[in-house]
């Protein structure tokens, strides 16, 4: 049982939902990432998703792409990220999950990646370019290491395939709200609540919805049908001017997160 499994069983027992912000590791530097993570926990976030910067992220919109570019321009390396997270995690109780391309995992060696990520304090990984068909070996390694491999379901996933993906996923299931790339949306697609609801009745795995979520009304609409909400680009955008003023960036992200948390509790 990982810290993520534990979190969702506690949330379920108390009838609560998770808010899971995404931030990019090393944007613009790793000490800042550490400060933001601590602040997110203080505000009441249940867990956080940490993006490992990648040079060719095809599922990401301009905001997250730009954050990866900033981090890589500052020469952030995976070893440095793990080192910083290990240090920060000592004072963090909330679980962390890494969002990472399989290009990076493969280059480091899947077992080595899992071991290093786990040692650093990550409880699992979301690997957006590792389809369920290609994931058998990596999934087995994750199970052996008690490390969650979070799989994704999207609006283009047929129902029978969604059930198969839910069976293979661990920790939670990442339900992608839109057909497209990451980034804030004013409106979420019609039928989203029904599609999540359909899957909700057919899997015991916690379901978290991500992509496009940026407003309290999104949270109010979706939280009744899922176990958690993932907010990425909207937060990364708040943090993108950290180079000018870290305090302002954190204040702006805090304001957004607080409004989303308030919507979650309402």
């Amino acid at each position: 049982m990982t810290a993520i499994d534990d979190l969702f069983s506690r949330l379920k027992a108390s009838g609560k939902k998770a808010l899971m912000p995404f931030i990019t590791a090393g944007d613009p530097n790793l000490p800042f990432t550490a400060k933001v993570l601590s602040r997110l926990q203080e505000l009441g976030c249940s867990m956080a998703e940490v993006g490992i910067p990648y040079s060719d992220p095809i599922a990401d919109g301009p905001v997250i792409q730009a954050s990866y570019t900033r981090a890589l321009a500052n020469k952030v390396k995976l070893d440095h990220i793990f080192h910083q997270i290990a240090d920060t995690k000592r004072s963090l109780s909330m679980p962390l999950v890494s969002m990472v391309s399989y290009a990076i995992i493969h280059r480091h060696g899947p077992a080595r990646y899992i071991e290093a990520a786990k040692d650093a304090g990550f409880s699992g990984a979301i690997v957006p370019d590792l389809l369920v068909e290609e994931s058998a070996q990596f999934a087995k390694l994750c199970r052996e290491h008690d490390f969650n491999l979070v799989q994704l379901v999207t609006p283009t996933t047929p129902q029978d395939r969604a059930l198969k993906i839910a069976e293979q996923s661990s920790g939670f299931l990442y339900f992608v709200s839109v057909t497209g790339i990451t980034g804030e949306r004013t409106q979420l697609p019609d039928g989203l609540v029904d599609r999540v609801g359909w899957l909700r009745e057919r899997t015991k795995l916690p379901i978290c919805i991500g992509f496009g979520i940026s407003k309290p009304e999104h949270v109010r609409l979706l939280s009744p049908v899922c176990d958690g909400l993932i907010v990425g680009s909207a937060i990364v955008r708040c943090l993108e001017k950290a180079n000018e003023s870290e305090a302002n960036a954190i204040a702006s992200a805090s304001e957004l997160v607080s409004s989303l948390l308030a919507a979650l509790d309402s």
Partner: protein
Amino acid sequence: MSTVTPNANAASSEAIRQVPDAQGRFGQFGGRYVPETLTRALEELTQEYAKAKQDPDFQAELNELLHRFVGRPSPLYHAARLSKQLGGAQIWLKREDLNHTGAHKINNTLGQALLTLRMKKTRVIAETGAGQHGVASATACAHFGLPCVVYMGAEDVRRQKPNVFSMRLMGAEVRPVESGSRTLRDAVNEAMRDWMSSVEHTHYIIGSVIGPHPFPMMVRDFQSVIGRECREQCLSSFGKLPDTIVACVGGGSNAAGMFYPFVEDRSVRMVGVEAGGRGAAPGDHASPLTYGFPGVLHGSYSYVMQDEDGQTSDVHSMSAGLDYPGVGPEHSYWKDASRVEYTSCRDDEALGAFDFLARNEGILTALETCHAVAKATEIAKTMSPDQHLVICLSGRGDKDAAELARLRGQEW
């Protein structure tokens, strides 16, 4: 130029043509490393292509287009003056540069445009480096009345202006990509992102033997018309198979199409030539098969230029079409099976080959193709006059005139 070594431990010839498997694996290479959002479209494409392949009507329509619209079969031309000049093997040029639009790329775009219609998709996107695939996509789309958006790195928009203009003349929208290195790799990223949102009604015509399954197999099949024709033309022109075939490799579509029909002919030596750029130092070339390692990029597992963290490395080639850090998975498979030899050729050597062919044969050759020409002339010199060497002359050089002038500090 790095040395070409003869085939060592060759894989069994029976097995080497039976790829990929149902998962799109060429040995360990290939597969599908893409976001879940694209899976349904890739499955649909796989199934539709399998049906089309067996459908005589589809094949007849494509062959008719290749004949009357493209002008196939392209000639196999005996470069007698060039051969004599070098004093080695007889050099034959498979004239893909004489196809409509000036390169081999049209073989693939017409096939995929027909599939787009069969799948009832209403919009096409494409990426392009040198612009030849962009032009071929724009052409196929104009022919069938499909709207077409072409993503092209901003640096490539600059160095391949004539092609940008041609695409626009045929009604395609060219979107310059300003991210990253502003070259082919970034154009692929942007096209993939477009497809993530538009996948339900848009087909992405990938221009090379790269990307997730079924693209590497399908593009190879559409380009294999080059090798099939060449095989027959060799037999009718000089009564036997060629001794050596040379083609340039960026993503590797002209090479795959040329090589594939010959992979079981063990007597035929095949050489793929990558872009050696300014030299062997990291960042100075675009030769993943020569200097890279297996890794994941743009949806498949293949040799790639990456740093120790798995970040794609910046690469360099003066030719926009070869300026790419990855390569098709089947080339990786052929490399590891020692069926094809891969080597690289520097910018300056390719420029020399441009002049050599221009002045000795009256052919202006695309800078991409010049890499193959340079290596081939070197190999030909080591062969005897009763031997035959074929170069896949994949594209014409008119598009490069302005860039050549710039590289040489001449007025245009």
